[in-house]
């Protein structure tokens, strides 16, 4: 387990934890972006270059900005006035903790049976392209359709009524 894994993991956890707990929404989004960049680094660490860069391009580039725009548009950028009651937050955290405990227990009891070490698989963009076009051509098409439908839908939803009425 390399040092870099731990550093990046720490960055990601801090980012995500901050994203979930900060009061100011913009800070949350920014810390989220940090967390996601950390995640992208993890992908790179795991050797999936293409996925890492896609992750950065999609999440950091688009989703974060989208979130920020959403925050701007819904005027929730002001500092949070009233936090949800303690009991509500406590129960949420408690449940999350139990879920984590169970998953951890599951992982710890399961991974013993998997082979611990394997060589760094070399993957090139070319191979991904070929795989996309051959094995996964159907999902590609479906994703294409899905994305167009989603974006058109999002546009219509977000469009201002008065604009649509003309």
């Amino acid at each position: 387990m390399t040092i870099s894994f731990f550093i990046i993991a720490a960055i990601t956890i801090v980012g995500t934890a901050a994203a979930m707990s900060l009061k100011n929404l913009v800070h949350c989004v920014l810390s989220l972006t940090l967390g996601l960049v950390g995640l992208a680094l993890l992908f790179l660490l795991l050797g999936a270059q293409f996925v890492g860069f896609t992750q950065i391009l999609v999440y950091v580039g688009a989703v974060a900005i989208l979130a920020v725009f959403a925050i701007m548009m819904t005027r929730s950028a002001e500092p949070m006035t009233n936090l949800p009651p303690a009991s509500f937050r406590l129960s949420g955290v408690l449940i999350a903790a139990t879920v984590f405990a169970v998953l951890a227990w599951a992982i710890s009891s399961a991974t013993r049976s998997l082979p611990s070490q394997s060589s760094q698989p070399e993957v090139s963009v070319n191979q991904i392209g070929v795989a996309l076009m051959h094995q996964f051509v159907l999902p590609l098409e479906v994703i294409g359709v899905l994305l167009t439908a989603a974006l058109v839908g999002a546009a219509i939803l977000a469009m201002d009524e008065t604009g649509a009425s003309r």
Partner: protein
Amino acid sequence: MNWIVRNLWLVPVLPVLAAGISALAKRKSRVLAASLAIGSMSLSFLLSVWAFAHVLALRNSGQPSLQVFNFRWFQFGNEWLSLGWMLDPLTAVMLVMVTFVGLLIFIYSVGYMEHDDNFMRFFCFLALFAGAMLGVIISNNLLLLFMCWEIVGLTSYLLIGFWFSNPKAAAAGKKAFIVTRIGDVLFFLGIVWLYAQSGTLLFYDNGAGFLEHSAISHLLTQTTTTGICVATGIALLIFCGAVGKSGQFPLHVWLPDAMEGPTPVSALIHAATMVAAGVFLVARVYPLMSAHTGLADVITTSTALQAVTWVGSFTALFGAVIAVAQYDIKRILAYSTVSQLGYMMMGLGVGGVSVGMFHLITHAFFKSLLFLGAGSVIHGCSGEQDIRKMGGLGKLMPVTFVTYAIGMLALCGFPLFFSGFWSKDEILHAAHTWNISQAPFYMGAFAALLTAFYMSRQVFYVFAGTSRLAEEHHDHAHAADTSSHHGSGSPHESPAVMTVPLMILSAFALLLGFLGTPAWPWFQSFLEDAPVSVNFGAFLTGGMLPVMLSSSVIVLLGLTLGWWFFGRKPIESADAPDNFGKLSPSIFTALGNALYFDAIYGATFVKLTTLLSRISDWLDRWVWNGAVQTVTYTVLGFAHLDNFLDTNVVNSGFDEGCDTVSRSGKLLSMLQAGRIQGYLKIVAGALVVFTIFLLWKAKI
């Protein structure tokens, strides 16, 4: 088959037609009614005489005197029921007698009913009665006879109850009809039984009629399960019809009460014709009656005839005994009719058709004479009927007195001159020679004595002594509306239209006897189709003389006794006790009330029927209805039970179920609170549980 036989049906139909026309006529005119009735009656009389002459001619020419005309009435099954009429000496005699007497009574009643406002209806009923009576006489079919018989009963009911506003008259009418109806029902059963056995109801149907030898012999052979011969059984049932109609012993109660009707009615119906119908019926079916299984030569009377004789003789004695103690003038005559009918039945039973019929003819004349005489007396005494309130009318109403006396003597059978003597003597002679027993002879003789006694009592009461009528001018009104009062209070002679028929009848009462004297028995031979020859010697032969002598002695004894008790010193006042009654008051009052037979019947039969009717009504209301009610109540009970179960058990149970469901529904909806985080928590929880489960499963 000459004209008269073919058209014999005109005789009964003419009066009926007259009755119909007068009933339907719009204008209520007395002249029309009277003329119609009398006209039709006289026409019938002429036709009857023609028929009589025709029969005489046949007899003289030696041909069989019986002629029959049958016609088909209706078809049922493969056979036709045919009716018909016949003409034989018996019919001829009866036709003449009934039409002649009827005519006289019609004329008489014109006078008698002059003041009555229902004049038309009276004559209409009389005509109808006459028609029905003639129908009975000429019919050749027992069913046709029965039908006319019933119509006669109906008319007698109507005529008795003529003054219907008087409740006693209405009750008398009803009683008459019901009692005769009892006889008729048995008669009807006899007819039905006969029809079943012999297959025909025609008397004579050239060989096939049931009175002819073949049917009779067939009937004789049959015996019912109870052992009596069918012929006797049928004969007895038919005789019951006769008993009912002729007022013989058990069914005689209606005759005295029938006196409530107007006197001409009593005369016509209860003296001459209707009551005689019973005797005529027995005479008509005599061959059936006398049929017996014994050998042809030995004259053994069949059981039926024996029964007839016994009933006849007892009724004769019984009628006479009661007649002695009666006060109402017409009741005395009624009871005397009952006893005389008993004589006739006895005559038929012992002597055969001719003996009975001769007495019937003679009796018809002098009894109708007596009744009409009583009628004129009542008419004279302005409706008074109680002999105790009369007296001394001999001088006031000489013609009535003389004719009445002749009738009385004829009735008692005063020797030699009076018809009653000969006819009664025939009967007594026959009874004397009866081989079964002499009891009927003695009963007949004693009845003759009593007849003489009570008739003399009546004559002395009415005609002798001083008139007791003056004491009570306004006696209790006989009937609210009978307006037979005359202006003057004292009794007076009736008008000519009433007295002339009396004279004619008295003449006949005298002369008729000579037709049937033993010396020249024309009448008997006429009936039996035997040749007749004058034979004065007959008196001496066959024990005729002693019987004649003994009967004349009895009559004279009776008359002297009557004179002794009533002639010598007639009672002074109306309410003085009867001289004879003084001897034994208790017996006398018993006899006065007709031995309480009315009360006995009332107590027994009437009470029984009312009781039975009440029982059946009770049965109806409670038993059958009760059963239905119980069913309905049980059903209602079940309904209520079901209702109870329904509301308490099922409903409440169901409601509980509903509540629990709705409550749990509310609980469940809590989950759907709309808070998204809530759902997420649940999902997370589920995830936890699921993974634990998987792991746990994987571990084992």
